[in-house]
């Protein structure tokens, strides 16, 4: 569902360029939930923004649901839902209006928009605030609205950049349970987070990225390789030699 090959992304900075993603390659199969792990500035957000077609790759290819992000960005957007930690919701619209608006943008007819709003209201438990302006919602409620917005067109792929960063423990657990439900429906999910313990037993696979390069790609068992300390220890063991060099 997601195929990334030798992806490179450079930014202009002052008079020079900075290589934020440096030849990244990985795949995420249909129905898989994969965690993208890395420190600040490792290249997670740049990779995800490139997959979401917000950034154009400098070189390499990225294919989402069979569509190339460079050649068919609109096709990619039709098949994908994207939420990031910085994604906001319009303060003066209600969740219902927001979902209706994005349903229109995705070309859904009135009946389909109504059905999707009802389904997402139930799935994401939006009923108690569906007609309240988003500006008056809590962080957790806003994040659920963001996720509903990303799901309004029923996408096969979800790319979630630190979706739990603004949430408390309870909100975070609820959201991750929701993601597990969505994966069970057959959706492909790529998510990043700094809270490794939260996703340790929820993701099928993990990608560890540092300085724009993928350092490890495997299941929890493969990464820990029988070591104590779980995912967090495996992460440090992978990243620290790189950081030290």
């Amino acid at each position: 569902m997601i195929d990334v090959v030798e992806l490179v992304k450079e930014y202009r900075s002052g008079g020079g360029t900075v290589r934020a993603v440096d030849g990244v390659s990985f795949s995420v199969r249909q129905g898989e939930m994969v965690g993208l792990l890395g420190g600040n500035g490792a290249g997670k957000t740049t990779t995800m923004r490139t997959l979401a077609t917000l950034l154009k790759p400098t070189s390499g290819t990225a294919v989402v649901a069979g569509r190339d992000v460079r050649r068919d960005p609109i096709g990619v957007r039709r098949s994908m839902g994207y939420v990031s930690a910085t994604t906001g919701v319009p303060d003066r619209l209600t969740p219902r209006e927001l979902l209706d608006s994005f349903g229109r943008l995705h070309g859904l007819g009135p009946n389909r928009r109504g059905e999707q709003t009802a389904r997402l209201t139930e799935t994401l438990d939006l009923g108690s605030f569906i007609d309240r302006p988003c500006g008056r919602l809590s962080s957790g409620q806003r994040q659920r609205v963001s996720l509903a917005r990303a799901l309004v067109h029923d996408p096969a792929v979800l790319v979630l950049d630190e979706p739990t960063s603004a949430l408390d423990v309870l909100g975070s657990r609820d959201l991750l349970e929701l993601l597990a439900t969505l994966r069970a429906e057959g959706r492909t999910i790529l998510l990043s987070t700094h809270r490794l313990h939260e996703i340790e037993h929820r993701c099928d696979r993990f990608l560890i990225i540092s300085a724009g390069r993928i350092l490890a790609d495997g299941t929890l068992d493969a990464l820990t390789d029988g070591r104590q300390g779980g995912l967090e220890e495996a992460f440090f063991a992978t990243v620290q030699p790189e950081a030290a060099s």
Partner: protein
Amino acid sequence: MNASQHTGGWAARLAIARRDLLEFIRDRRAVFITLVMPMAMYPLLALSSTLGIRSAITELDNREAVTRLDLVLSGNDAESFAARVAGIASRSEGPPEGWPGNLTIRLADEADALSLIDEGGADASIVIDRGTMAGLDGDGTVSLDVRLSTVRPPGRHVRDHVVTVLRGVADEAKIARLARAGLPASLVEPIRIGFSGVDDPSRASAVREILPTAVAAVLVLLALLTATGAFYPAIDAIAGEKERGTIETLLIAPCTPFDTVCGKFLAVFAVTLATLLANALSIALTASVLVRLLPLGPGSGLHAGGAAACVLITLVAYLGVAAIAAALCLAVTAASKSAKEAQNTLTPVVMLIAALAASALLPAAGTRRWLPVVPFTGQVAVARATLGLFSDRSDDDARTAAEATVQPPDIVFGLTASLVSSALFTWLLLHLTAGLISDEEILFRGPDAAASGLRRPRPQRIPSIGQGFAATLAGFAALWYSQGFSPEEFVPALLVQQASAVLVPLAVMAWWQRIDTRATYSLRWPGSSGSRVAATCAAALLLGVGLFLAGAAVALAAWGGDVSAEARQLAERLVALVRGAPAWHGVLLLAVMPAVCEELLFRGWVLSSFAGERPAPRRACVAVVVQAAAFAAFHLLPERMPQTFVLGLVLGGLTLATRSILPAMIAHAAHNATPVLLITTASAGDLASLEAGGATALPPWVVATAIGCLAGGGLLLVAARQGLSTRDR
């Protein structure tokens, strides 16, 4: 799970517009400022203006409508004369028209009378000598000498009142003489004039003097306030979305950035239109109140049909104001990271719009046929001309020459040109915004980017888009300020102008940015072999000559001799310069120097900044159009702008096609050298007919030469570019 279908296009644009409008109307403060405030502002403005106008009228009344007259009579017949005057004042049918309301007559000797008028005790003195009354009652003519103060000049009313009083005495004597001759009094009064239903004419006249200026100021204010209607929704639409983090959700929607920008434009345009209508309604209601408050007098307003036509044409013209303002504000705010930054950036936009709108009030503005194509100026000019056309003022002398010569076809042409130009500007601005909204650097740059403005940037190969704008603006500013210190003589002025407007800004910016001069100014040969370079240069030469001749033919057909005084003056100075010096002198000054300087600026710095190093076709087109527009505007005179714009397009295309500035310099030099050489070789008769401005078409052989040069240049260029490797291209 399935991918959504049939996305983008008008459905997406309307969805975004609907969403933005919904957000806008939920913001009560914004709705109040944008739509409700004008309803309160115009009445307040009108009230204060009305009070001012009425005070002015009262002052005029006090100054002009004085009805008091103090006369001192001296001489032997003074007493009889005074009695005659008193009789006229108290006659049953009333005194003659214009008779002073408060007339005092005193008798004194001649010396006392002079002292009295010099001290301010009386307005005038008349010596009534012995025999005056006998003369009046006889058949002769008596001479009276009215003496006014030599120390305190009296008001105009004193002279008028004295003449009225003496004419009253003379008329009575005239009627008595007719009666003695057995003739009726009507013999000398075939017409008696009476006025009815008239307000005080002096008051009406005062208001009518002020009214056209006030109406023109209101038209400028309407344009400015209509444009300000776009500010808040535009800030909220892009910069606000960036601040709230919602812009990403739109940019990952399944539509193009242009669809997104169009949707946002529709929302901002709708709010701006609502602002226009709110302003127009408030103006109409306020005007209807003012009509009752101010003594306008007859023939000073519009008849009902004319008023309706004026309102309709003004509203249609101002659609352009609303559209360009909405697109301009979106473009400006698209480059801002936050609402605060957008507000700061919009401040100069307000000043620009105000300056453009107000320039339509310049005295000669009404005579510029192509003025309606200028944004914000054109719409005000069309509305003003419409008002002049439909005004039923009877005193044509009081109308300006521009108003008096406006005809309905001019209005239709102006309105059409204004609407077409507005649509074009809007379209260009929307494409620019679509580029800016998805620009990664602008979209994801950190807050430190704005704070690093005064730090010298790292060296880079070519200037950025912002530096392209900066060079253009610096050039315009230098062009303007250099007029203050450049010498009166034409040649030194030309040198100062090119140096200050082109070379100095370029040198400063190139030093500041430390750009790669070869990449920025395309300092390369236009081909890898000598024959290709020669063929490309020859093609450029032919294109330059052809463009001048074709441009001159079109300009002559369009303008004929009907050009502005400034254009005529410039032409005369150029002809004088060319005729008064050797040909090489003219070619060097008017062709080679501008070709080198202006090409370095426009096809060098500006084009490379907008196009980038290896531009995609669409970006290359936008870059060529933008630099050509700046190049045309640089030539200041509206008559020259169409030709310079086309020249800029060709030179920009030539530079990008050959990746060298040399062909553009050659074509530019050939373009400018053609008239120099034609004038140098022309006969005195040809020049005389040129100066008379009678010609409206070039001879057929010239047109044929133009076509030949353009076709030959084009073919030669294609041939020179044939078989080039991709690297060479």
